[in-house]
């Protein structure tokens, strides 16, 4: 019936596949895609580099280093790199030991170069012992050890007055002691409040709740809470904790506000962790006659704990960087004392940074960069902890 029509359609005159042009367009498109990803990565790099360059001025501006501190710093850095190198070699099957130990050699060389020979032997002993530790502990801690050594090395070069000084109107004397302690204090209370409540809510929703309108409503609520702007939580905290409960502008008020902010995130991640526990774990325990709580406590929670903790750490790391809610409830920006009880006023890192950024003097903006470096380091630490935790507690079914 249609042989002739088909013959027409097969006629190459009506087909213009333009293979070459399509190939080129495709290549250009891939280029654009790669460019987009590269742009994102480049922005991150620009941010980190910009902040580091600006912040280094205040962080490392100490005029006088003791030589021993400086050489110790170099040596630690070298050892940290060698620890990594050593493990890498070991992974590839190269075994180096004893006096030929690369770290021992490296330490000797470094310290020898620094003309601090009396230090050489203790360094060598310390390194050799240090390198035994990760092997004894298992797979992962070696990278932690290297990071700790590096941190220690950097610390030795730091102008430590930045970490130990209170706020000041003179840029060179301004430090970050009060906000640093304030952040730690507030986050400790936040974690203590939000973790049990969040995990509890998740357990209720996953293990207890019926599929009725109430649990559905809570679920929708929690999903939407995650999208509420953080500054709105600040207003809630202001009315509820600062005014109604008369906690004033205290650590406790800030911590409770933060707890409300991170709770939805903790609930969602804990729910995911609970859902990942296969039903067979529960059924096995029920089959033995366990009650619901016994099942949850003995058979579900142990398997979901790692995931839950990871989610909590990530949620808290978001809270550490949050500025707006605490600004609204009134975290002070200039305090020259440490909060001693939960009802004292306080300030936190991001607010101190905001305060410094908003000042017109360039010196203060550089200090802000130093504060940012500190904040990013804390975040890096928390996120690495979360990643390591996730890897260590991951169970494959």
């Amino acid at each position, binding site marked *: 019936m*249609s*042989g002739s*029509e*088909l013959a*027409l*359609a*097969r006629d190459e005159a*009506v*087909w*213009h*596949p*333009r*293979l070459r042009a*399509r*190939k080129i367009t495709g290549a250009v498109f891939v280029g654009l895609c790669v460019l987009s990803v590269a742009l994102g990565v480049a922005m991150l790099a620009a941010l980190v580099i910009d902040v580091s360059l600006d912040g280094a001025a205040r962080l490392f501006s100490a005029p006088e280093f003791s030589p021993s501190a400086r050489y110790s710093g170099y040596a630690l850095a070298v050892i940290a790199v060698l620890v990594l190198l050593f493990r890498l070699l070991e992974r590839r099957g190269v075994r180096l030991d004893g006096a030929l130990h690369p770290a021992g050699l490296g330490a000797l060389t470094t310290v020898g170069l620094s003309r601090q020979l009396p230090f050489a032997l203790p360094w060598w002993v310390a390194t050799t012992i240090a390198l035994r530790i990760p092997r004894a502990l298992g797979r992962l801690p070696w990278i932690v050890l290297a990071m700790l050594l590096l941190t220690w090395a950097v610390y030795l070069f730091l102008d430590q007055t930045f970490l130990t000084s209170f706020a000041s109107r003179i840029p060179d004397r301004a430090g970050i002691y009060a906000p640093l302690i304030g952040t730690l204090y507030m986050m400790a209370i936040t974690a203590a409040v939000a973790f049990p409540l969040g995990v509890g809510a998740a357990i209720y929703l996953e293990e207890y709740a019926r599929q009725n309108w109430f649990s559905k409503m809570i679920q929708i609520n929690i999903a939407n809470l995650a999208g509420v702007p953080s500054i709105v939580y600040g207003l809630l905290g202001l009315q509820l904790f600062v005014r109604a409960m008369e906690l004033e502008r205290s650590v406790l008020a800030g911590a409770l506000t933060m707890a409300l902010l991170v709770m939805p995130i903790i609930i969602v991640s804990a729910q995911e962790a609970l859902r990942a526990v296969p039903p067979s774990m529960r059924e096995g325990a029920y089959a033995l006659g366990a009650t619901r709580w016994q099942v949850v406590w003995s058979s579900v929670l142990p398997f979901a704990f790692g995931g839950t903790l990871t989610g909590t750490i990530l949620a808290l790391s978001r809270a550490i960087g949050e500025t707006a809610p605490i600004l609204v409830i009134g975290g002070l920006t200039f305090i020259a004392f440490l909060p001693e009880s939960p009802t004292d006023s306080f300030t936190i890192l991001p607010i101190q940074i905001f305060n410094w950024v908003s000042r017109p003097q360039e010196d203060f903006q550089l200090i802000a960069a130093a504060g940012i470096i500190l904040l990013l380091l804390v975040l890096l630490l928390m996120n690495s902890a979360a990643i390591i935790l996730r890897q260590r507690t991951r169970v494959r079914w």
Partner: protein
Amino acid sequence: MAEPGTSGQKAGGVVTIAPDERPDLETPRDEPAAERRGSDLFEEIEDARGAVRHELDAEIALELRGLSVFYGSFMALDSVSFDVPKQEVTALIGPSGCGKSTLLRCFNRMNDLIPTARMEGSIMFEGRNLLDAGIDSVGIRRRIGMVFQKPNPFPKSIFANVAFGPKINGYKGDMPALVEESLRRAALWDEVKDDLDKSALALSGGQQQRLCIARAIAVQPEIILMDEPASALDPVATLKIEDLMRELAEDYTIIVVTHNMQQAARVSSYTAFLLAGEERTGRLVEFGPTQEIFTNPTDRRTEDYITGRYG
């Protein structure tokens, strides 16, 4: 029966490659063995092909010579050689995991999408080797269409589904006419002519599969590959697809993978039987006219499979 020394040839035109007659193939990494594979065996099959061609008096659409497929270090297919006749239905049968689909996916280079896949040997199509690096897989796929196991219409309108291929391939003719013609050829026009703008996902499974066939023929390919096209459908829809296949064979070369032997018997003119050994590497056991394969198979394993002893 095959005489010793002239293995793989049979008077009836059925090519048989029994494993005991080609022990050299068991050691593919061995240099001399590989060489033998490239020379001795090739000639045997050349001879065999001559016989097939003469006997069948059919034009040849695709010539497979020593086609092997690897996924990483795993050999999925071991030097398959046979000819696919033009404008006929050729069925690939065999138990699960024997490499039928892998073989089918070589013809339009779909295996390229798997990063670890590698193909050796040759598939000659219009005088060119499809496996050559210089051959553009995108260009091939317009000439060699494909229909999949599960109907996979795009979540677009029926019209847009059929027009997708012609559009990207730069069809300059009358698009509505081409869409209508393709849908007619796929025996779907009468059912959908009034709702061409409706989503293709609203169609039934059988209709979706016929839409996929219409979509495949809209770009006017020479060859249509079908990967168990009816396995996800009910018996009525299956019969429709089978009728369609026989009809389409007047204009197109059709290669169909099926695990349903009745289907192979009903629709195909030629059948290739593949089988995987212990190491899961697929090999061609027998190729010939369907009638002979089913009524008078040369190889005992073919007989076993057809009579249901393989499961």
